[in-house]
């Protein structure tokens, strides 16, 4: 049981699932919204104990452990550490906001829409909380189906194309992840992630496992050459779908790097780091340049996501305490900021029925409150000092300059590009020549306020007082990074070892081959 004598994590996962099943038997469509909103608020309350996470306590807290398939070494194992804590909180927060944000946006098949939202929430929390490799994979894949339906049923005109592309891309990427999971069981003898973390693997195995896992995670992030599904999916998805996609789904990729690649394949991660840094920088610059040329607001934000996530992967693969905490903070910030932006575009779309910049120009005079919040999120997105993204981006950049000055110099234009494309968007939407404005477009109502204010508060809170968040996550990062260094040292990996020599490195402990007894014991 957990320190609260109450299975917090299980409750967080099961409540939306149970509510989703209950929705199926609900006769009145109108009620579905209220029920889901209630569940969302209840879920937020249930997540409150997580705030009691003790940064300097044990590595994993709120741990729950139960046998699942003992014959194969699978277990139901959940827990939270500094890497996953804020991701879970963000997921929980997004559910009620998404319900509120699509209160009028979704007008057909309402029950099914909320059914998908609830399933998504449950699966996403599971992904971040799972400490068993198979359990992780179960949630990782289970989340595809509701997301697919969100895009395919409630999406825009090209929804069929976008949803299939999303599904094929992400599923194809994660098939090799399954092979890696199976391989880890053979080598490490278990599916339990904490146990696997304690072991060391030969370099050759690490390299193959890293490639298989990195492909899955890089597609999810998405990193530069694998990003093409993202703009399509974002543009076609309904507002709430885009919010979930940006705020939570993309984080799973970077979370996967942190949770699996760094601790399980440390030597391969270090070896691949220059390459990963290169494509991170490529993502930052490429995403920024493409965003600069977009006329569709949603597409612009989608490409800006590619650039922002580039900063996250850059921070992760610099392997310094500062840069990785910056990366995690940036994951959280991107969720808040881009989530907020997509929510606002949804509200705008409800009024103008167009996502083109040219159809939404000059709203500053007519919808001041809307533009205030839109400006706030835009400034946060370009990492304006005082907003949340500034903290994350600066930490990553400090890490970059510490690691290698040239990496820092290569990433800085990304921050400038962000200012350029966001200010261009903001300038035209606020002060451009009004093109399609109708007096029937009301400024934000109470419900819309309620949707956006929590996110806006978080923008300021993290921007002005980031210390709290950083101190919570730092011990976990420190633990991960020092374990990684210790393992590489034990293996005898040195900085300028050529690849051919690295490939011959054996595992440092005697766990490279599963003992025959485990293999025989597993009928």
């Amino acid at each position, binding site marked *: 049981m957990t320190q609260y004598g109450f299975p917090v994590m299980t409750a967080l996962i099961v409540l939306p699932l149970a509510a989703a099943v209950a929705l*199926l038997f609900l006769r009145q469509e109108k009620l579905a919204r209220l029920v889901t909103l209630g569940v969302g608020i209840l879920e937020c309350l249930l997540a409150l104990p997580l705030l009691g996470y003790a940064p300097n306590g044990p590595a994993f807290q709120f741990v729950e452990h139960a*046998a*699942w*398939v*003992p*014959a*194969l070494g699978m277990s139901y194992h959940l827990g939270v550490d500094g890497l996953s804590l804020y991701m879970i909180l963000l997921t929980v927060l997004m559910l009620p906001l998404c319900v509120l944000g699509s209160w009028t946006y979704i007008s057909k*098949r309402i029950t*099914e829409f909320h059914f998908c939202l609830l399933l998504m929430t449950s699966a996403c929390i599971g992904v971040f909380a799972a400490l068993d490799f*198979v359990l992780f*994979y*179960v*949630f990782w*894949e*289970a989340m*595809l*189906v509701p997301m*697919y*339906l969100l895009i*395919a*049923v409630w999406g825009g005109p090209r*929804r*069929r194309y976008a*949803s*299939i592309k999303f*599904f*094929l891309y992400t*599923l*194809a990427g994660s*098939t*090799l992840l*399954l*092979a890696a999971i*199976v*391989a880890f*069981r*053979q080598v490490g003898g278990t599916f339990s992630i904490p146990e696997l973390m304690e072991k060391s693997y030969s370099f050759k195995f690490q390299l193959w496992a890293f490639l298989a896992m990195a492909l899955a995670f890089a597609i999810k992030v998405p990193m530069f050459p694998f990003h093409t599904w993202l703009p399509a999916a974002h543009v076609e998805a309904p507002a709430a779908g885009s919010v979930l996609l940006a705020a939570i789904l993309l984080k799973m990729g970077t979370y996967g790097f942190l949770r699996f690649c760094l601790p399980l394949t440390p030597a391969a991660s270090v070896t691949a780091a220059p390459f990963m840094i290169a494509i991170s920088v490529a993502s930052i610059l490429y995403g920024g340049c493409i965003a600069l040329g977009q006329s569709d607001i949603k597409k612009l934000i989608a490409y800006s996501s590619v650039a922002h996530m580039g900063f996250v992967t850059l921070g992760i693969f610099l392997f310094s305490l500062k840069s990785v905490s910056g990366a995690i903070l940036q994951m959280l910030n991107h969720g808040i900021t881009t989530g907020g932006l997509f929510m606002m575009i949804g509200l705008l779309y409800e009024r103008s029925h167009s996502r083109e910049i040219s159809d939404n120009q000059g709203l500053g005079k007519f919808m001041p409150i809307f533009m205030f919040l839109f400006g706030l999120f835009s400034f946060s997105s370009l990492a304006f000092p005082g907003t949340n993204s500034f903290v994350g981006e600066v930490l990553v950049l400090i890490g970059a300059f510490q690691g290698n000055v040239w990496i820092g110099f290569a990433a800085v234009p990304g921050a400038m590009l962000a200012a350029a494309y966001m200010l261009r968007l903001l300038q035209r939407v606020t002060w451009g020549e009004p093109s399609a404005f109708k007096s029937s477009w009301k400024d934000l109502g109470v419900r819309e306020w309620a949707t956006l204010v929590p996110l806006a508060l978080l923008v300021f809170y993290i921007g002005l007082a980031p210390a709290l968040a950083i101190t919570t996550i730092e011990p976990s990062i420190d633990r991960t990074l020092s374990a990684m260094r210790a393992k590489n040292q034990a293996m005898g990996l040195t900085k300028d070892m050529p690849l051919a020599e690295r490939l011959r490195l054996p595992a440092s402990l005697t766990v490279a081959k599963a003992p025959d007894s485990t*293999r*025989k014991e*597993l*009928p």
Partner: protein
Amino acid sequence: MTISSLLPELWLLGIICALFLASINGRRDVLSWLPAAAGLGVLVAAMGLSARGEFFLATYRLDALSQFFKLIISFGFTVVAGIAAARKDNRQDLTPDYFMLLGLSAWGLMLLASCVELVTLYLALELSSYSLYALIPLRGQDRRAAEAGIKYILFGAAVTALALFGLSYIMAAKHTTYIAALAATSWSFDDAPLAVLGLALFLAGFFYKLALFPFHFWCPDVYQGAKNETAAYTATIPKLGAVVVLVRLAAFFAPHMELTTILAILGAVSMTVGNLAALVQRDIKRLLGYSSVAHAGYVMLGLAAGSAAGLSAAAFYSLAYILMNLTAFYVVCTMAAGGENPSLEDLDGLYKRAPGLAMILAVAAFALVGLPPTAGFTGKLFLLSAAWDQGYYWLVIVAVLNTAISIYYYLGMVRHAYTGESEASALAVPRSSLVFGSVLAVLVLLLGALPAPVYDLAARAGTQLHP
């Protein structure tokens, strides 16, 4: 060692006799009691799970493997009867003799599960095949059904001849037909070339039942031609018979022997060919036909591994396979009220016309892909991990890449059902039928989320072959 341990077989035989009597008395209302009687048979088979013993000069053995498969076979027969019963009001062609033939075929497979001697095994196989030869062309005046019947018989007869020819080689080389005695001898090609060749030919008979490449050509045509209920049966339960025999015979091999390599290669080709061919199908039954070719390939992962874990994974996967396939066929049969072949376009707008069916179809389709948390995923996970443990890295990678290919056409079914629009009127599905389908879908999910109890049963069967 008493007759009571044969109760699962005897119960089904009783049902067959009752159907026979109903048939000669001209009574047509068998569907009112058949599903219940068959369901009781599942209970009987579950109670017989721990029965052990040998009969008829040790040619017929009750062990963990046979009892596990008898349970699945009786379950599958019940589901087929249930699917047929769901639409009994509009169907005149589901007569007692139709079900009698179905029952006889299932009965032959039950016997097959217990046979541990090659000649007995052959007889049991033929017993189950003969009734299928009669069943497949039974579809009113449909010419495609006649074509399917001819294809099935000709193909079946040729493969049977091959198998018998192989059997003669095995007898000549090993001087015994008892599986236990055969397992004690060496099966590497260097030691016994004639016997290995013979066994390869003998296995062909079962590959044909399983629709493994290159013996799969009949499969899509027969599914398309046969009546929906017949196709549901042919697609699922006879494969169990093939798997149980292959599991018994695969215990001969160590990994990376000539025959295991053949199994692995056939498996890899079979899944790739099946999945690629399925991509372009429009008729759902043809699509499911090719999908079953692919799934036969997946089962080979466990058989090629040959270890206790591999054999139990193959047994578990065959259960998962029939469960998800029967769920998919339930939707096919229920949709087509008049018994016609539904196409992908007929699925359009299913979410509006029959929301329950659409959801059941989605569960079945995602299970067939192997997405968690469904039975298809856990089954595949067990197979992959067994094959990886025995060093079949390339086979595992081919298998996971095939998942990526297959998603397209399975997703196509869901896409048509959920995003297609159609003007067709709502489908009236009786509540009892919907409950039945939901139970199937829930079982698919349950077997995926909590596989441990069933996997332990399969594991007991696997360890018994590999003590």
